[in-house]
């Protein structure tokens, strides 16, 4: 099986993001609009120079999201593709846009992604009861990963403190980023004492909803 990468060169000519946060006053459409506006500005192009778009989005399951980016920016007539691949959806939008450029089909492609989870309320990821099998258990996202943590603790002797160090490092990184949701540093003790989300993963071991 060949894993050769792409054979032509592709460059990122501009990028940006919105601030992360609860953002009660902004819709999914606002966020996408603002991110694309500042990315095109960063690239020094106008939106009319975009040949095609890829959007990574998981919520919600509208089936219309490929068209959503066209609709918001009024890029009518440009090919639009939605990528849905769990938490890797955004990265996968970028990967597929890169393939499109490398193939020579387009000169400029837009890869973007958006979620507005707080519009569905704050209790974990929404929708787990809306799809899939009616009976097999549907653990929350933290619960799925935490089962691996439980077993690793058991098998390799890892501890909650090992996890806490990851959270401390991530918060430290966030503290330097002007668009991060949380810009405060945390201590190992705080990470370890945080309320449980899915044992042994606590609040600081899981993504904040935003």
């Amino acid at each position, binding site marked *: 099986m060949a894993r050769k990468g792409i054979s032509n060169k592709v460059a990122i000519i501009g990028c940006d993001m919105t601030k992360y946060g609860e953002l009660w006053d902004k819709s999914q459409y606002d966020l996408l609009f603002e991110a694309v506006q500042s990315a095109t500005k960063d690239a020094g192009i106008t939106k009319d120079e975009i040949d095609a778009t890829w959007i990574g989005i998981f919520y919600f399951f509208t089936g219309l999201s490929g068209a959503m980016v066209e609709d918001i920016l009024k890029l009518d007539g440009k090919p639009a593709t939605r990528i849905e691949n769990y938490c890797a959806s955004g990265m996968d939008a970028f990967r597929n846009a890169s393939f499109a450029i490398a193939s020579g089909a387009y000169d400029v492609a837009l890869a973007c992604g958006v979620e507005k989870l707080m519009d*569905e*309320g704050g*209790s*974990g*990821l*929404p*929708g*787990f*009861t*809306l*799809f899939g*099998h*009616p*009976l*097999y*258990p*549907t*653990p*929350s996202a*933290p*619960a799925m990963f*935490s*089962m*691996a*943590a*439980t*077993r690793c603790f*058991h098998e390799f002797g890892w501890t909650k403190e090992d996890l806490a160090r990851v959270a401390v490092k991530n918060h430290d990184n966030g503290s330097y980023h002007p668009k991060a949701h949380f810009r405060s540093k945390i201590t190992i003790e705080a990470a370890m004492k945080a309320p*449980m*989300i*899915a*044992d*042994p*993963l606590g609040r600081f071991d899981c993504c904040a909803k935003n």
Partner: protein
Amino acid sequence: MPIGIKSYGAYLPKYLLPRDLIAKAWDFPNVPGTKAIAMADEDSITMSVEAGLDCLAGIDPKTVDGIFFASTTQVYTEKDSASLIATVLDMREDIITVDFTDSTKAATTALTRAVDTIKANKDIKSILVVSADTRAPEPSTMWEFGFADGAAALLVAEEDNLPLSIEDYYSISANVTGPWKRANKDKFIRTFEVKMDAKFYVESITKVMAEILKRNNLKPEEIDAAAYYYNNPRMHGRISKIMKFGQGVAQNSLFFQIGDTGTPMPFMLLIAALRRPKDDAKIIMTGYGDGADAILLQVRDKGALRDLGKSRLGLIGHQKSMIITNNYNKFVDFKELLEKDRYIRKSSAVTVWRDTASVYKWYGVKCKNCGTVQYPDLSRSCYVCRADDPFEHVKLLLHGTIFTYTLDHLVGGAYLQTPVPRCVIDLDGGGRVLLNMTEIENPEENVHIGMKVEMTFRKEHEGAEFKNYYWKCRPERGRK
């Protein structure tokens, strides 16, 4: 060939509610003892499955020719329960299934009709009669002290060497308005005048027992055990006196510990009476409700009864693993008496039907190429060797060990009775499954890798407006 009881089984839920908590909650005079309370994920179908599994331990369910289900708390009024219980117990398709409902004597009636059915059909050699009730008492009424939850099952069969034979049975009918529950209106049981209820009870139950003695030329002193339904301990002694039964004949051990379990109570009392079987002992079992049924049984094989006692949880086995709750609100919660959002999920009767083998009958698949047992059977390729379409269905076992787990606080995107332990279980005999855990206190302390668990059939949710059931795991209670 004789017809009799080949096997028995019972089920009692995990929790006992002390009656003084009820008295304290409403400032009532105290009634001693405890009563068994089912959890919110249990109903008469799930409890019948438990009693059926207990009864059929060591017996191939494919050899049983029918199932009769008896309850006053059937979960559907159109759609039977017996066929669902038969499916979960992995019985054959060419069997008879009947629900007996609407009266607390339904279990004894079902038993007599099972005998008739076997007598009348040369192809029907055995019928599983299973009974369960989960009657919810209206809060702040005296019914709260009595109503309890549980199930029991008797396997009726026509064959030689039965441990217990059914010698005779006799029924009477009596129309009395009390207690009742209107089908179209009442959430709880009502009554008009308990003294009138008691009068009809005493008359019916003594009349039916006197008649069965007379028909069989028996004197009261020739009866070794009497397992008759009662919902009031004082009434129990009064019946014994009227019938002139000897000391210790009337089986009475249940009310103060377990409560009034309704329809399955005569079966439970019989099981209790079989604990120390005597050679050729004659036993009367009596059910009451709009009349009464009396059934005369005789011990035929004391040793076989003792073996049944050892190889089944029965009553004692369940009682050993019950725990007393110190919180009355647990009862309110279990009975879902508060109007609040319940966990619900999208469902499909099509999906559930198509996956019957895995979700109800507890089958997995075994790879013919590499031998790995796996679950569920959604995939068409082997998890381990990746062979395509290599599977044959195999029955999974109901015991296993926790491989890993988490305690999930985000159930269904809402904070509903959390945390829920999600457990990855390595089943004895092969197969790795992901199931939620029930019957667990303080999961932070009590769930761990390597823990032994049993699978139990439970109510999950009411998505698509029907009852969705599936398996959960629980800490071991010792089911064989």
